[in-house]
């Protein structure tokens, strides 16, 4: 598991152009966010112009990895060593972050222009910039201090963004999220303290070499796991998720559900693969909770009346699929083939869900903005007047349901294969139940939208491009299934 995360020595030193690309990938979103706070963009093209260097830096980093394999950076600042690494998985997650971030940024001017004017809206830009920079740092960081800094920056900026809508419900939900996120990070910090006290180092590569199973590793893993699970909204601690999304702005919800939650999950898997290699019980507990999450999240999404709660609850269920894979990734006595399949399926599912969920939130935001109603019943008659938004919602749900040829299908195919080889029948059952429940709540939403008997009311026209951005995200999630060999080659870690 360790080599898959790229925690080994690199062969080549990074080139100068790669250094520049790294600086731009990490710093540019933040700088552009500050600039946008001073001069808030009203149109899409200045945002697009500002996003070009970020996308270019991602491209340069991808080609650098293609040529040189794993790359490492290390600095010593006042006796503290900080290190970054770039392997196939981090490149992939970095590109995902950049594309979804750019899509959300492009979506924002139109969405802000159409909703009622807000005094705080200019603060969205710097917070979004900090969020994207912190996320990029999380995928690259390979020591616990950098991870902690990035995690905290990401958490605080995410809370700030969710609060901007300024309604009382949003403030209450946001305050709760703030307190839980802060306490979660303290649990993480306590785990790190135990690690630092016992093994005296913070770099992941060195820790992977010296950590041995024992009470300290178990307690540290439990503390870190509890803190990160709280931030990732893993099943029993998902209560804060739906209220937070219910009142947030659309691009904020899209970024949060697609990326912020995944970052905590990524850290959890990475740190547990160092602290708890080949343990039996801890991954089983996560998997059991994941099965409950699939059922409970699906039921919540099926029973709800609000469109945003439906999308948010479906996130809880979709995270359940990822949790169910934990025993295959971390458990003992798993043959190499199912482990490799589970690894590829896990990340493909995560990335596919990120694109699909961002598209789904944008489609839901478009529907809510156009109809002015946030309930499912308010969607009546939209099939005639807003077919494109519904189509985007449909394409995104195809990925969530795992119908071919979407990335959800490819990911679930890989996961099913791994589960069948290692004979984990309960996981297979959970996967199939989840698919049925997803179909149930998606079709329930469509049933309301095809109801033509409703009285016609006025629809707010959308800004140009808002549908196109969401559509391109949904089609990316769809197309990743057909072009899965690119992503899988990157994820295999070794050579392309």
């Amino acid at each position, binding site marked *: 598991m360790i080599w898959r995360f790229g925690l080994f020595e690199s062969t080549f030193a990074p080139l100068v152009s790669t250094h520049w690309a790294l600086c731009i990938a990490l710093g540019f979103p933040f700088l552009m966010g500050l600039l946008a706070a001073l001069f808030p963009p009203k149109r899409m093209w200045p945002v697009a112009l500002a996003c070009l260097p970020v996308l270019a830096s991602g491209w340069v980093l991808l080609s650098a990895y293609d040529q040189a394999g794993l790359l490492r950076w290390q600095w010593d600042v*006042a*006796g*503290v060593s900080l290190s970054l690494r770039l392997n196939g998985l981090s490149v992939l997650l970095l590109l995902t972050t950049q594309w979804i971030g750019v899509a959300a940024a492009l979506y924002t001017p139109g969405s802000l222009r159409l909703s009622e004017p807000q005094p705080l809206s200019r603060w969205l830009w710097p917070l979004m910039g900090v969020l994207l920079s912190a996320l990029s740092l999380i995928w690259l960081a390979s020591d616990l*201090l950098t991870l*902690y*800094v990035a995690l*905290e920056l990401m958490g*605080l900026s995410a*809370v*700030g963004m969710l*609060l901007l809508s*300024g309604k*009382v419900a949003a*403030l*209450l*939900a*946001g*305050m*709760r999220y*703030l*307190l839980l996120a*802060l*306490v979660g*990070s*303290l649990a993480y*910090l*306590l785990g*790190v*303290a*135990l690690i*630092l*006290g*016992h093994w*005296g*180092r*913070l770099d992941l590569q060195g820790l992977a070499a010296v950590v041995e199973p024992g*009470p*300290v590793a178990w*307690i*540290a893993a439990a503390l870190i796991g509890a803190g990160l699970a709280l931030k990732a909204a893993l099943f*029993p*601690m998902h*209560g804060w998720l739906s*209220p937070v999304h219910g009142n947030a702005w659309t691009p904020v919800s899209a970024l949060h559900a697609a990326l912020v939650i995944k970052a905590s999950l990524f850290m959890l898997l990475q740190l547990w693969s160092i602290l708890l290699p080949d343990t039996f019980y801890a991954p089983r507990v996560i998997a059991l909770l994941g099965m409950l999450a699939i059922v409970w999240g699906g039921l919540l999404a099926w029973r709800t009346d609000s469109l945003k709660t439906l999308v948010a609850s479906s996130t809880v269920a979709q995270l359940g699929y990822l949790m169910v894979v934990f025993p295959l990734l971390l458990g003992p006595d798993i043959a190499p083939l199912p482990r490799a399949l589970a690894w590829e399926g896990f990340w493909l599912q995560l990335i596919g869900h990120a694109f699909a969920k961002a598209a789904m939130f944008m489609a839901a935001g478009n529907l809510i903005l156009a109809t002015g109603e946030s309930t499912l019943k308010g969607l009546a008659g939209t099939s005639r007047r807003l077919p494109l938004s519904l189509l985007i919602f449909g394409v995104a749900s195809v990925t969530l349901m795992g119908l071919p040829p979407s990335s959800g299908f490819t990911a679930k195919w890989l996961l099913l294969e791994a589960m069948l080889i290692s004979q984990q029948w309960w996981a297979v059952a959970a996967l199939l139940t989840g698919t049925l429940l997803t179909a149930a709540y998606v079709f329930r939403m469509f049933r309301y939208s095809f109801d033509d008997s409703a009285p016609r009311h006025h629809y707010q026209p959308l800004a140009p491009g808002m549908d196109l951005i969401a559509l391109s995200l949904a089609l990316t999630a769809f197309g990743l299934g057909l072009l899965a060999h690119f992503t899988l080659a990157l994820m295999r870690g070794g050579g392309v």
Partner: protein
Amino acid sequence: MIASFDALEILLALGLTVTALACLFDRHLVRACCFFVAFALAMTLAWWQLGAPWLAAVELLLGAVLTGLCFFYALGRFFPGVSSSLERDSFNEPWSRSFARLLLALAWFVMVGAAIRYVITDMVYSPDEQPLLLAGVMITASALGAFALHRHLLRRLLAFNILGSGVFMLLAGVAGTSASAQALITVGLCIAWLGSMLGALLIRQLLHLEGVDALGRDGNPKENAT
């Protein structure tokens, strides 16, 4: 010399624990905030005592001054006329809930104590007396209990800050005051301050929009099953 050193440390540990408990459980909110500032000053002394002057400076600036200002701002002490200011809150929790939270705090106490016991015995030096570490365990346990028990948002923010200081104290006790540990604690202090500032702004905004009642319930009462 060593004996006097130890006495000072024990005195500090006692002071920390007492101010923390007073801050967590005093019903009068202004007094609780004053106790918080006293606690932060005691933490400053403790960092100095542990041989980390940099941390002492950061704690004094961020912990005592800036976070203290955040709390008094949230209480409405700066602009008394603008909106209603807060005085005190009441505990009207059912006994079952309080008992469950007490059990939670005790379980936490036992777990962290056991972990630290394990780490400390494995380390090269053998500390005979570590009153500050003990104080850290006590403070984290009681702060976690208070965080779970209280529903008032300002109290939860206070409990989070105390919990943070306790965790930093544990970190310094377990890992020493090496450069990495100091860096971690500095980052933690900055984050705690930013979080407190965000929380204070939120509390003011909620008071402005909804009045004092909004702070008593944390979110929707239905969702408070956890």
